[in-house]
């Protein structure tokens, strides 16, 4: 059962109960008042009749039962001829219960009269034969002889008919009120729970994958707050799902690129090895095959070494100690090959000491220097610098080479991402160099900052904490 139908039913039940009890009580009170006034009126009639009858008896001086009966009959006859019809219904009985006269309706039974006499003149007896209602009044006739009772019966059916009418009228009123109130309550509760239904449908469509569904704001404060909270939750879920999807896309790209990087050298190695082991190839082809096998194996070896280093960095922490930057720059200079195509210009504060892992920092700077040289600097040089910044030292590697477009920058540290694949490949790049640099920077608690303009050159900056020797 829904909340709105429960609310409607509850309101209806309460209303129905109140109206029924209130109405019933009012109508009952009306009846009681009518009965009371009719009793007063009937008692007066009864008294008048009694004194009239007593007068008649006295006039006839009826001292025996038979005489009394005759006298009463005469009186009744006179009454009937003067007033007409049966407007007065009465009976006269003696103490033993012998009826001297009766003009009572048949429906009023004898024992009712007896019990009315037994109850005495102060009380009222009611009699309900069939659908008629009667009020029975009894009082002793005094004067000529003892033991005579006058019993009058008054028809009060009209009072009860009136009550029935009132009840019917009231019932109609109540039903009308209930229908109106029910409609209003249903409409109101439906309207009130509309935000809940909006929330429900939004939650359902979210469960089915529509993470961008939101609920509109509404006028009721509580529901509005709930809706806002729901929207916040939905936004959080959506951004999380997005992040997961991006991560999964990145993983897919990584696996595809890794497969390619692995299979390409393998294809050459296997192919040339197969060529060599099939038969006696001419010397020139033999030399070429061996050359390719050697270089492609080197490439695989570099790839596996860098990948292992990357995994190692991602898993374990490193130990940082104070290192003089000029020593790191010197390490890099020494590690470069003899035929390195670019000059190295160093601008380093001799007192610069940073917290770092010397060999990892050396690898980082070396990779950046190799990249800078591959960019083909116009002045034929790679510029290394170390300047003081707030909180430490800033290392920078600058070249005046080909540079990169702004949209490339966010992806260049992604594994196997190569801006210019053929150029990178000729230079022996595996596509892992910058990933490795970014990872080393991360292990040092900092990050690489790239600034590049196509055709102008690139600057990579790295802020390191100051160390004391």
């Amino acid at each position: 059962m829904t909340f709105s139908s429960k609310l409607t039913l509850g309101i209806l039940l309460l209303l129905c109960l109140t109206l029924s009890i209130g109405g019933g009580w009012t109508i009952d009170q009306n009846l009681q008042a009518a009965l009371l006034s009719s009793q007063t009126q009937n008692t007066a009639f009864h008294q008048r009749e009694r004194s009239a009858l007593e007068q008649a008896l006295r006039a006839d001086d009826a001292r025996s039962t038979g005489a009394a009966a005759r006298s009463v009959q005469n009186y009744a006859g006179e009454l009937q001829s003067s007033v007409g019809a049966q407007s007065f219904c009465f009976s006269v009985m003696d103490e033993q219960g012998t009826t001297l006269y009766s003009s009572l309706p048949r429906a009023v039974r004898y024992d009712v009269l007896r019990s009315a006499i037994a109850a005495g003149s102060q009380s009222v007896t009611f009699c309900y034969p069939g659908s008629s209602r009667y009020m029975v009044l009894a009082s002793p006739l005094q004067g000529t002889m003892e033991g005579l009772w006058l019993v009058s019966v008054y028809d009060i059916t009209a009072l009860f008919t009136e009550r029935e009418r009132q009840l019917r009228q009231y019932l109609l009123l109540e039903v009308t009120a209930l229908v109106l109130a029910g409609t209003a309550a249903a409409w109101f509760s439906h309207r009130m729970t509309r935000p809940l239904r909006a929330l429900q449908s939004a939650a359902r469509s979210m469960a089915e994958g529509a993470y961008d569904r939101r609920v509109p704001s509404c006028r009721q404060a509580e529901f509005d707050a709930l809706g806002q909270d729901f929207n916040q939750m939905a936004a959080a879920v959506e951004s999380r799902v997005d992040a997961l999807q991006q991560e999964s896309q990145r993983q897919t790209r990584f696996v595809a690129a890794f497969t390619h990087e692995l299979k390409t050298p393998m294809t050459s190695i296997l192919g040339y090895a197969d060529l060599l082991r099939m038969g006696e190839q001419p010397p020139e082809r033999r030399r070429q095959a061996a050359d390719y096998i050697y270089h492609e194996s080197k490439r695989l070896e570099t790839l596996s070494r860098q990948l292992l280093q990357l995994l190692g960095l991602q898993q374990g922490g490193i130990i940082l100690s104070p290192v003089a930057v000029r020593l790191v720059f010197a390490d890099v200079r020494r590690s470069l090959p003899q035929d390195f195509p670019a000059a190295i210009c160093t601008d380093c504060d001799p007192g610069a000491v940073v917290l770092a892992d010397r060999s990892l920092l050396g690898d980082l700077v070396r990779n950046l220097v190799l990249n800078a040289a591959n960019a083909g600097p116009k002045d034929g040089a790679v510029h290394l610098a170390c300047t003081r910044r707030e909180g430490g030292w800033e290392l920078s590697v600058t070249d005046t080479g080909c540079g990169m477009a702004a949209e490339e920058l966010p992806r260049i540290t992604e594994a196997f991402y190569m801006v210019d694949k053929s150029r990178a490949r000729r230079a022996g790049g595996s596509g892992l160099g910058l990933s490795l640099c970014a990872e080393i920077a991360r292990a040092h608690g900092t990050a690489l900052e790239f600034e590049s303009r196509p055709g102008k050159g690139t600057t990579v900056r790295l802020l390191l904490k100051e160390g004391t020797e």
Partner: protein
Amino acid sequence: MYPVLVVDDEAPIADLITITLSQIGLPCVQAHSGSEAADLIETQRFDLILLDVMLPDVDGFELMEYIRPTGTPVIFLTARTAVDDRVRGLHLGAYDYIVKPFAAPELLARVEGVLRHSGRRDTLLRAWDVVVDPEARTAARNGEPVPLTPHEFDLLLALLHNRGITLYRSALLELVWGMDAEPSNRTLDIHMSRLRRKLGWEKHIRTVPRVGYMLEVEKTP
């Protein structure tokens, strides 16, 4: 008769394919980038294009746009094994695909198959008076069919695919009998002498003592 275009940014792989195809007498032209390939496709005609999917500038799938109007058959070379990639290549109109790393016999078989089906070239191998159909696996001498056992035919094919090169015994055994079988050198010698007799090549198949066998290159008169 047009050359085969080999598109691969990896020089070693492009060279490997060129060497392999030259053994069955197919001349190759190499392109090391998508744009280079597109230029060549516009200016020259080819019997077949071997196309790497991952190229630095224009990728293999995009190159199909240039190739389709020329009607040149294409075989994709790919390091990707994902079914989606292969299906995409075939949908774009490639005849076949080869997954890297590949073995030389596989490359040759696929290239021969595509050339024959596209009607670009007959792929019959000829040596002196013998004509060999690698797909139907039949050989004929002066138009007369020569009955060969499957092993003998494989030996003949290996020799024809490596003319002028001394093939090692171990390589021949593995190529013809497979990795797991253990036939003796004697088996190889018997098969070789039967092959010589059937084809009348007593002089053309040379025995290199303790090394292997070589099918001589035909001297052009």
